[in-house]
């Protein structure tokens, strides 16, 4: 399936869309296609709301954000996000604030169809005063001192669609990720539909030579999209490195609304698809992010004699 078809089939106005990938394998190209197709009124769920979220905000796709970190990695601020939250400029943004583990537990509850998930966070935090999702449950077992014990819980999140980026998958959707695997499996299982964008689609034999590497089995995947370099400016372990210069540049670009809109025009609206974005960046650029070889040693799965 092409990215265009996948976004058009699985992302609708008003949907709750989870985009996951913790610094590694961020589904940027999918975010750009959502912008190109002009989706509106989305709820975006993403632990680390970073550049791609700022871009989707600036393109007017998003009315609600559910997140545990809203910043440009360690490289600075998200200009559009700050304008939206600090000044409701050009319009307000509904923001549900969690911590990282709170978000992880929401995906865990979603993936397991649980009504809630307990965690040992939030006691004494002001977060519960601004987020009605954070509630308490009394354990039915006595605490260490014999007294009843209270613990915070978070509600499940069940996105209409989860989109992730991965290194590779086979045609039927068995998805393999190495390096940081983050919360991708949970985000996919929590969702009603799942789109997996990959650096490459590989033969069945490649996947089946190492079934433990499959982080998400085919039965949980609704569409596989081949989109090389679709995680830029983040990285794909073993494929290309992180574009740190772009992260540093984003604070400046996004600080100025006009500059941000010009960037969107040049790199998203005026490119037909991610292939055009990639070729516009040019071969020399990609060479600067190239990585060398560090192969895993094989293990023996064994064969009955």
């Amino acid at each position, binding site marked *: 399936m092409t990215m265009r078809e996948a976004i058009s089939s699985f992302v609708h106005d008003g949907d709750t869309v989870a985009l996951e990938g*913790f*610094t590694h394998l961020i589904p940027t190209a999918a975010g750009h296609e959502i912008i190109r197709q002009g989706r509106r009124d989305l709820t975006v769920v993403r632990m680390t709301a970073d550049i791609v979220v700022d871009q989707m905000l600036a393109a007017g796709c998003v009315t609600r954000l559910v997140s545990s*970190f809203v910043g440009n990695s*360690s490289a600075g601020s998200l200009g559009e996000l700050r304008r939206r939250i600090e000044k409701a400029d050009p319009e307000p943004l509904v923001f549900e604030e969690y911590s990282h*583990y709170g978000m992880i537990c929401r995906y865990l509850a979603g993936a397991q169809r649980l009504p809630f998930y307990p965690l040992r966070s939030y006691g004494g935090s002001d977060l519960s005063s601004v987020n009605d999702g954070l509630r308490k449950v009394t354990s039915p077992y006595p605490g260490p001192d014999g007294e009843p014990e209270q613990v915070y819980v978070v509600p499940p999140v069940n996105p209409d669609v989860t989109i992730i980026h991965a290194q590779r998958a086979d045609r039927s959707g068995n998805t393999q990720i190495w390096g*940081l695997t*983050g919360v991708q499996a949970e985000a996919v299982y929590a969702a009603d539909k799942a789109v997996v964008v990959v650096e490459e689609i590989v033969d069945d034999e490649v996947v089946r030579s190492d079934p433990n590497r499959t982080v998400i089995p085919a039965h949980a995947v609704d569409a596989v999209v081949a989109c090389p370099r679709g995680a830029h400016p983040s990285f794909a372990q073993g494929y290309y490195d*992180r574009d740190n210069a772009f992260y540093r540049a984003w604070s400046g670009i996004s600080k100025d609304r006009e500059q941000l809109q010009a960037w969107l025009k040049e790199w998203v609206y005026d490119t037909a698809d991610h292939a055009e974005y990639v070729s516009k960046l040019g071969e020399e650029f990609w060479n600067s992010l190239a990585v060398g070889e560090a192969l895993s040693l094989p293990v023996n799965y064994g064969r009955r004699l």
Partner: protein
Amino acid sequence: MSTETTVNTEMTSSERLSVVASRELAGRRTVFAGIGLPTLAASLAHLTVAPRLEIVYESGVCGAHPSHLPETIADAVLITGAEAVLSMPALFGYVLQGGHIDVGFLGAAQIDKWGNLNTSVIGDWDAPKVRLPGSGGAVEVMANSREVFVVMRRHDPRSFTEKLDFCTTPGPDRALEEGVRPLGTGVTRVITELGILAREGVGEELKLVAVHPGVTVDQVRENTGWDLAVADTVETVQPPSAEELRLLREDVDPDRVYLR
């Protein structure tokens, strides 16, 4: 660059803070650290006072052996050659909440006398003057690490405040008030450009225990937004030794990525 030249370079604030923080890690086994000063401190401690120290990164990396100094907690060089890379549910659930972290490092825009932290907003949460990044994993690091070290470059009354604009990350005192049992002791060390504040555990507030050479107790008091408690004896922080600086500059961050 010879050792001689290295050591004679004037010491930066980053170097001083890294060295001081590294000493506090003596004998520790696991540290949960973000990139920058905490990683520098932990890497230096690994070479000096805590040879068995393992840095656990929020991204899921345990036992990293990076070929280059990492620029983020998820840098590709942390993954290649690492001993283990865990999923986020395993990292936060089993390692952090499971109680395997001795020391967690945190930073903040604001801290109060109990070690509660604000990383969410300056101003009202609903209509903030400045929207900050928020918790990330800080709420969990505070709730679950045995103890927490805070490194604050800036020591002034706006950052060291009587009342936080918003408490993102509560220490155990606030948690207990609400009837929720914390698993760690909260902030035990705050390392700043002026000195070191310390706190033993639940029910105690931060107390000035050491100042950097040339800094007076009054200076620290003036730059703290609450009526700062002071230890009976305030030590003077031992300046970084030539060997500590050499290791930091030659082994830990030879390209001076963070030591600028």
